[in-house]
């Protein structure tokens, strides 16, 4: 009787131990994996300024595309810089000319938009999004205006960095 009882509790102990060992080993394996999966969220990114162009060459009212190598952020071990198109636009407002550096990444699903000279809009071929010259989304699925690169002028030379600010 007592032996049988003892046996059963021994049995129970072993079953418990099997479960605990399984769970423990699983946890030991899973913890670093989950950590590695989540790690991109905590990457720190640095974005240096890069030169774009002499703005004297940019005509007023005609979005002009420049391809620059920008730092792509994150923590990658190779190709830290990627080519990106920057649309430099001089907007002809009522009594002043304003300069913006538009990102050409569509705010819908991040395809590349281009300035369409026939339609007079930035056109996105992916789903037909359209933006006006200052980047305002005017038709199609895009939910926001085009983003703008942070920029600074040193004399007449335009510098940007890969930090996007909300447009309009």
């Amino acid at each position: 009787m007592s032996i049988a009882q003892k046996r059963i509790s021994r049995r129970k102990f072993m079953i418990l131990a099997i479960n605990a060992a399984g769970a423990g080993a699983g946890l030991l394996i899973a913890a670093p994996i989950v950590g590695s999966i989540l790690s991109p969220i905590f990457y720190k990114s640095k974005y240096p300024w890069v030169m774009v162009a002499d703005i004297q060459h940019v005509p007023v009212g005609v979005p002009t595309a420049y391809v620059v190598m920008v730092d792509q952020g994150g923590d990658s071990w190779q190709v830290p810089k990627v080519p990106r198109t920057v649309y430099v636009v001089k907007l002809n407002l009522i009594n002043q000319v304003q300069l913006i550096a538009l990102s050409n990444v569509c705010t819908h699903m991040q395809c590349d938009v281009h300035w369409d000279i026939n339609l007079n809009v930035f056109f996105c071929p992916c789903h037909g999004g359209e933006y006006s010259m200052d980047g305002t989304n005017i038709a199609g699925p895009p939910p926001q205006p085009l983003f703008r690169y942070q920029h600074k002028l040193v004399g007449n030379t335009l510098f940007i960095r890969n930090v996007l600010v909300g447009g309009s």
Partner: protein
Amino acid sequence: MADELQRSALVAKLTRPVAGLMATTYRWVDERLGVTDLVHQLLYEAVPKRGAWAYSLGSATLILIVLQITTGMFLLWTYVPSTTEAWQSLNFIEYHDEFAAIVRGMHLWGAYVLFVVIGMHMVRTFVSGSYKKPRELNWIIGVVLFLLVLGLGITGAMLPWDQAAYWTATVVTHVVSYLPIFGTQVQEILRGGPQMGPATLTRFFAIHIWLLPALLVPMIGLHLILLRRHGEHGSWVNYEGVEEETEAERAKRMANAEAPYPALPSDPGYAVPMDLDEFFPSQVFKDAVVSFGLVLLIFVMAVVIGAPLERAANPAALNYVPTPEWFFLPLDQLLVQFPQAWMIPVGVFIIPGIGTTLLMLVPFLDRTPGRQPWRRPEVMVPALFVVLFLVFEALLAVNRLFNL
């Protein structure tokens, strides 16, 4: 007794071509490994007699997945999962390694044919009501298999890292950013950083060649084990007249059922098909013909057309028009139709999510008594609309992209 006879006949058949020493060796191995028993178990099964060509779609799917895995393994002999070298390694294949180019072509066309065939398999099991008692769980496993195969298709399309691949990856990894609350984080996890980069490719590479196949293969195993447990249901042509049957006739049919029938629990009369046939060779013959035809088609397409490789990925290209893979056209079209901030998740998550959930729940939603499609209008009519919806969306997407 009959089993024993069958077994020794099988042993004799399997050893017939080899005499003497070979036969002795076979027997030695068989005694230790049980090859004959295994073959016996795999091949000698009862299957429904009528409509058998339609039931070869499942094994065609299986063969095509085996083909994908095989060709995929050998693509890895050359393919380098890196943003700088992936495109170059495939470009090398295209111009300097004709056989590898065929392997690559077969992997791509295999995937295309697979989508068609798995779709047909799904439609066929749906129309014949095969998901009904007791096969509900097998249908659900099937839906999971379908989603896994779709996932393999989309992750595979990202691997060449040409323009098409790059923009597919961009759009797919940006869709998730519209998830509520964690959107941005999930996107960063998938991309390995805030923007597309080298880590994006390695991630999707790992998902394509390891994560998803590691889920797919056991699920297929489960699908087939359950299939064997319940037996093939077939379709209404195998159950003509069950309603007029008397109790006695039905009882007799149940009693004479060959393994694995009767499939229980099931609706009265549907546990055993009216006429049975042998799985081997009758069904296997049809499976073999269909699968051979498909593999031949894939081979020919691979040789004649091959797999395209566009220019290397270039995030700054202005005149490139991204087009999704054809099997994702309906989803891409939904992106067009649900514009602006808060409606986008409706198009990308809510509608496809509801669709998938309903698809999974089909066995529980369909409470119709019969099996004939024309006696189940309340499932066939909505299903027809879903299919029409997908076809229309795809056509509209083609039209939109053609006229850009």
